[in-house]
């Protein structure tokens, strides 16, 4: 397995207000797979994503990505991991408002050892004509594509997407997912998508369902659909 989570536990709060956001989570995915993690609000999806992305740390258990056990890394180790291996795409885009589309992508290219050519990437994500625009001048879908470009420019091994279509209309959502499909095919990027939208799960190689911090289903998707065939 390329990604392997073993008995992952994460708790927040204490005493009566203690919340177990991850309760013995165990799963794995192969390199180049698209995995969709489904679950209702508060089920622990985002917590899991934060752990996989090295934004937060487990209380117990382990996470291995390739040859690296990230659950054993300190702050600087996690920072290096995020810098080199992971790309993030968030529901709220999180673009830097004072930078144009191209410059937002440059932010990551600047700290990458061998970044992909920015203009080629923007071209693939159909952002060339918007590359000198500021985020505020773009539609939601365009902003999300910019966020994907930013995540991909370092050619990460893993792309983590947190409700990436949550703020988009269906057309924009389909556009964005189409881009992910294209990226996966072209760069063999391992993609994990967190969503509560069942429709998206049909584009996945693997579907994981999570509830109250526990994985209740981990299965391969035998009826994988192209994004153009999804009903979202």
């Amino acid at each position, binding site marked *: 397995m390329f990604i392997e989570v073993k008995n992952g536990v994460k708790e927040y709060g204490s005493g009566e207000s203690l919340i177990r956001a991850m309760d013995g989570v165990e799963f794995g995915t192969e390199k180049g797979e698209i995995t969709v993690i489904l679950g209702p609000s508060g089920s622990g999806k985002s917590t899991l994503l934060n752990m996989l992305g090295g934004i937060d740390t487990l209380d117990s258990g382990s996470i291995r990505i390739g040859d690296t056990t990230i659950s054993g890394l300190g702050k600087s180790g996690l920072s290096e991991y995020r810098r*080199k291996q992971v790309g993030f795409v968030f529901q709220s885009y999180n673009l*830097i408002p004072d930078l144009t589309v191209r410059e937002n992508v440059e932010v990551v290219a600047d700290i990458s050892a061998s970044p992909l050519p920015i203009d080629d990437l923007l071209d693939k994500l159909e952002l060339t004509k918007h590359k000198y625009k500021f985020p505020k001048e773009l539609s939601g879908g365009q902003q999300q594509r910019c966020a994907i470009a930013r995540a991909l420019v370092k050619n990460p091994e893993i792309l983590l997407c947190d409700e990436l279509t949550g703020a988009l209309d269906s057309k924009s959502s389909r556009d964005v997912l189409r881009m992910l499909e294209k990226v996966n095919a072209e760069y063999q990027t391992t993609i994990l998508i967190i969503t509560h939208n069942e429709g998206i799960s049909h584009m996945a190689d693997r579907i994981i369902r999570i509830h109250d911090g526990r994985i209740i289903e981990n299965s391969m998707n035998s009826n994988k659909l192209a994004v153009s065939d999804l009903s979202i």
Partner: protein
Amino acid sequence: MTLNKRYLRNVKSNISFYLSITLLTALGVCLHVAFDSSFGVQQESFQKLLSDSLPEDAEIMTMFPVDDIQDLENEYHVSMERQPYIDLDMQGTEAEVRVFAPGEKINLYQIQEGSDLKNEDDILLSGLFMERQGLSIGDTIELSGKTYHICGKVIKTDYLFCLKNISDTFSDGDRFGVGVVLNSAFSEYDSADQAVVYAVRYEDGADSVAFRKAVNEKFGILSYVDIGNNSRLQSPKDQFDELDYTVNIILPVSMIFMVLLIAVVLGRKIKNERKMIGVLHALGYKRYELALHYSVLGAIPGILGGILGILAAIPLIGPLSDMLIEDKMEVFYEVSHITPTACLVALILPTVCYTIAVFITALINMRGSAIDMIKGLSKNKKKRMGLRKAKMNFRTKYKLRAVFSHFPRTLLVILGIALGGTLVAFTFACVDSIDRYVDTSVKATGDYEYEYFLSSIKTGYPEKGSAVIAASFEVEDNPDLITLMGVDENKLIDVKNTSGEDLPLEEGKFYISEMSSYAYHVKEGDTITIRNNADLKEYEIHVDGILVNGSQSLLIASRKTVNSLLGMQEDAYTMVMSKEKIDYRDSELLREVSKTSLAEALDKTISQGMHDLLLPITIIAMVISVITTYLMVNILLTESSSVISMLKVLGYRNKEINRTVTYIYHALVPIGVALGVWFGLLMNKLNFETQAAKYNSYIENYVTPKSVIICAGITIISYIVSMFLLSSKVKKVEMVESLKNSQE
């Protein structure tokens, strides 16, 4: 309401911000209260002293005793009183005590400590003299053979700055003091050959010129010293005026500026609460309720800072009072204590300003819909700096946009950097200007080392040195004196114009010094009327040029010209200037002045005080500079927390984030430094201009390159310190929390 529970939590979660604001407020309040209290009480005391002791307006020495004082008083609306004194040697020391009989109408003595005169052998002595001589109340001293019992400490307003001779430059408490004995005790010293000295007070509407003419006609005035020219009282008055300017103008203005700056910063901080304000607004809270709720967040640092500042000021008042006044003159009735007015202002001003700033900001933030507030949307379309296609690194573009697209924030940072620099530059410029004034005023007197003021008029040429005829005159209605000086062509005195060209000492030609030209508004070609201050005889002088000398009030001409004007023998002289020391007998001299001692005296009286203030003001300025810069850049970090968070998520190291986000204002430091130095110089210029108008002397605004470099260095060091303190702030930005809030 339940909502109020947020106050403590909000302050706790922004502890470094509120702590900085509270400390900065406390510092401003502490300075204001400490200076205002230490100076204010003494100033009040000084005014009370002046009104209680009825000091003279002038001192007149006559050839013959004035025997119809009552008639003169009635006719000219004046008070006049004989002021006899005698100088007695203090046994076993080199000190002299000038002993007075108690006056009844003018220059009344005040008891500072101890009890009043009761017995023939009782004496009241000046406190500073007692301190220097190691004397206490109850001790006995022997004055010229007679033993006196010290019953108390005395203050005589006509000897506040205790000079033996009016022309002396500094008081020497080791060698000279004043004392008062009963009339009956003084009578044994009083005799006909005593100098006939009278003190005069002019009542409202008194015609001083007519009075002086009448006295001169009947009794012959030997000397007339207006109180404005009597540094025994004028010097303390001038010091109070100078301190008054610092304490009542510079410090309050600095505090108000600081408070306003903090108010703006607080307002910006509350702006970051927009989302929460939106949520509360959506929950049904009314606009004014929310504005009031948030305004308490402004009041908290205002009140705390005020209280802390007042508490910190209390132990400073005594030492500050010593430093400012007590060591230099004797004016005290009361021990310095904290003044309620200063405390009230210190408590009210910051609290009200901060509260209003936050109240208004909260109201402004609530102009949009609750949804917009919650989503962080703004109706104001912020214009971003372009540079879209510029061939620059994204970091450079980000910094430029952060600086220029958020100009109010940038302006705050510049002002924050400049604030400390202003204080430092003001102090250094003040010291440099005074040092230069001291240097030039001594140099401008000529290339000589010694001045000998002769006790009688001589004629011809002295064996050694150069002859000078010199006399002091009043200028029309101005009581300040100008010296009319007649000199021979010699190398000891430079007679040059402002362009550095020699002015010919031709017969009939008079030149006025730059300072007098400025003080009396006289230009080349004008005529100035001068008046002998004894016999009031007037002379009209045509000014043929301006002499380069910005520190002395002087009219200069050839010796022959001056003697001719005064009706004296053409080769008469009253003074000798020399490069070498000349041995005169004591009886031949009124006094001897060396340029070195003059420089030392000027340095001691004018320059030293400012030098003493350099270090404390620099430290205070650095603290202010560090905290203000910290606060301003802290605002930047708060407002950029989502960017910092995102950069962390993207794998940026803290150092890289600091380089990209925190250190964007490095390029503004030179602007802040330049502004600080400029503001400081401007303040100094205003300071000296105000004083010039008061004292008819102008100290040119001047700062050395070395001082500018030091000011820049101090400002830069302060900036670096605040950057160092801020660098850890980036570490504290949570990746997860900031991402939740990030939505433009």
